[in-house]
């Protein structure tokens, strides 16, 4: 059943390994329920890689991300980041949570929300101003700086969370379905934003999504997770050219092929479940 699990000890893209997930297993216990959310995940992400993670709903993607972020201790196995085992949020990491609404501080304006981590980094005021402005502009929210998060629409809230992450200029960026609540056009813009950010800063990115097109369009690799109890079902290298474009890339035949391949894997992931 777990024959598909692949064990990698080295980054697929051949670069130096930054993040190493080793045999992570996570069982949620309590309240009369014990769920093995993640059974056995092993993979490595190289420095500066952009890896997308797809998998059915409830597969354990969020769980995995939280383990990597050091917010959740794995039941067994370990997460190694830059050679050190993770047991708390490492510095220089930014996370965009799936529950974007709750991850914004309701007592701060949009601007303050974005500014807070920057203040923590002790950046000078001018630099902060610049970063806030650029980030909010990039997500199309330059004009709501002084609003409170709860005065915004769902998509806008999500974009604030994204702006906060990118303004932070992290080394590692973890994003959990960050574009779920925004419209197609904005989504495309944000995808390009993430790519350009990644290009510009070389930030190592782990991107969880349920949109297969998005995963293929964005990533260098796509990790396909099975449904719960979760293993890595496939690890697809996306051999599209580095310069991507919403129109040409998406209409290329290689894109369609990869897309088809991933889709098939996910179908299998589902069946996998049905069989279990």
């Amino acid at each position, binding site marked *: 059943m777990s024959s598909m699990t692949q064990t990698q000890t080295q980054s697929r893209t051949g670069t130096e390994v930054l993040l190493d997930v080793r045999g992570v297993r996570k069982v949620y216990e309590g309240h009369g329920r014990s769920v093995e959310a993640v059974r056995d995940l092993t993979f490595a992400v190289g420095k500066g890689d952009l890896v997308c993670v797809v998998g059915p709903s409830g597969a354990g993607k969020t769980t995995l991300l939280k383990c990597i972020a050091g917010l959740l201790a794995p039941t067994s196995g370990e997460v190694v980041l830059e050679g050190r085992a993770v047991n*708390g949020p490492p510095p220089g990491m*930014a996370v965009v949570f799936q529950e974007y609404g*709750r991850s914004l501080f309701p007592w701060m304006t949009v601007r303050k929300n974005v500014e807070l981590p920057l203040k*923590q980094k002790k950046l000078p005021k001018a630099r902060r101003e610049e970063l806030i402005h650029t980030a909010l502009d990039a997500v199309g929210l330059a*004009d709501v700086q002084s609003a409170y998060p709860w005065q915004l629409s769902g998509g806008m809230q999500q974009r604030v969370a994204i702006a906060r992450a990118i303004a932070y200029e992290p080394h590692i960026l973890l994003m959990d379905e960050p574009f779920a609540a925004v419209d197609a056009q904005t989504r495309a813009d944000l995808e390009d934003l993430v790519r350009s950010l990644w290009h510009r800063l070389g930030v190592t990115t782990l991107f969880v999504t349920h949109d297969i097109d998005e995963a293929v369009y964005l990533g260098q690799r796509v990790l396909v997770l099975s449904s719960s109890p979760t293993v890595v079902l496939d690890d697809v290298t996306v051999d599209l050219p580095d310069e991507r474009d919403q129109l040409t890339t998406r209409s290329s035949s290689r894109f369609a092929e990869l897309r088809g391949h991933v889709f098939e894997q996910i179908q299998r992931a589902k069946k996998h479940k049905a069989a279990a």
Partner: protein
Amino acid sequence: MTSTTTLAAPARKSRAGAAGRLLGGSALLGVLGFATFVALLEVVPRIGLVSPDYLPPASRIGVALAELVGEASFWTALGDTVRGWFLGLVIAVVLGIAVGFVIGTVPVLREFTASTIEFLRPIPSVALIPLAVLVFGTDLRSVLLLVVYASFWQVLVQVLYGVQDVDPVAQETARTFGLDRWARMRHVTWPTALPYVLTGVRLAAAVALILAITAELIIGAPGLGNEIGVAQSGGAIPRMYALVIVTGLLGVAVNVLARRLERWLLSWHPSLRREVAA
């Protein structure tokens, strides 16, 4: 975008107007509520539900109150009480918040202090009066000891619950963005706990006032409580009630202040958001 800016100016004016009306409206209702209470106080003794000798009607208390206000000694007593109360309250609140945050954010401490807190909390301040007199005599410090002891727990428990109520997603967000313990306390825990703290302060304010008066009454430290005691033991019932009314009004005053503070500090909170929107 244009609409936002063009609309802003007139809208803000109308909002201020609406808020003003709202405030005025609620103040009016409050006065109305109070008037009902006073009317009840007038009627109950008059129709003989209780003897007016023991519960004088509001009008007679009013007369006594008017006399009271004319006495210089009353104002001194009022000053004494307010001083003891305010000092005690400030100490209790500061202490309660500080201790509450420390205990609340360190799970081990929380676990190990819980039983002690539950043990100490129900010990009534009044039982400590001889001890207070023994250690501090009959002056302000005794009153302070009792006031602080009683109101400290109110704040502490509220703070403990408030700290516990922090939204983990918000907390995790802060952690991942590298906010250190102090910054998380300042930017995440504090705002979450603030509504609880304010409730604690409101609870403590009343308890502190009660204890200040009771301590003065029993120990004999100067203040309104002492005046109440003298009036009571002299059988001057309207005067006693007049003093009690003053006490109650002090309580109302604190509450008005607390509500102001709340409106100012917690405008983002769901409970206030809705009201402004409504």
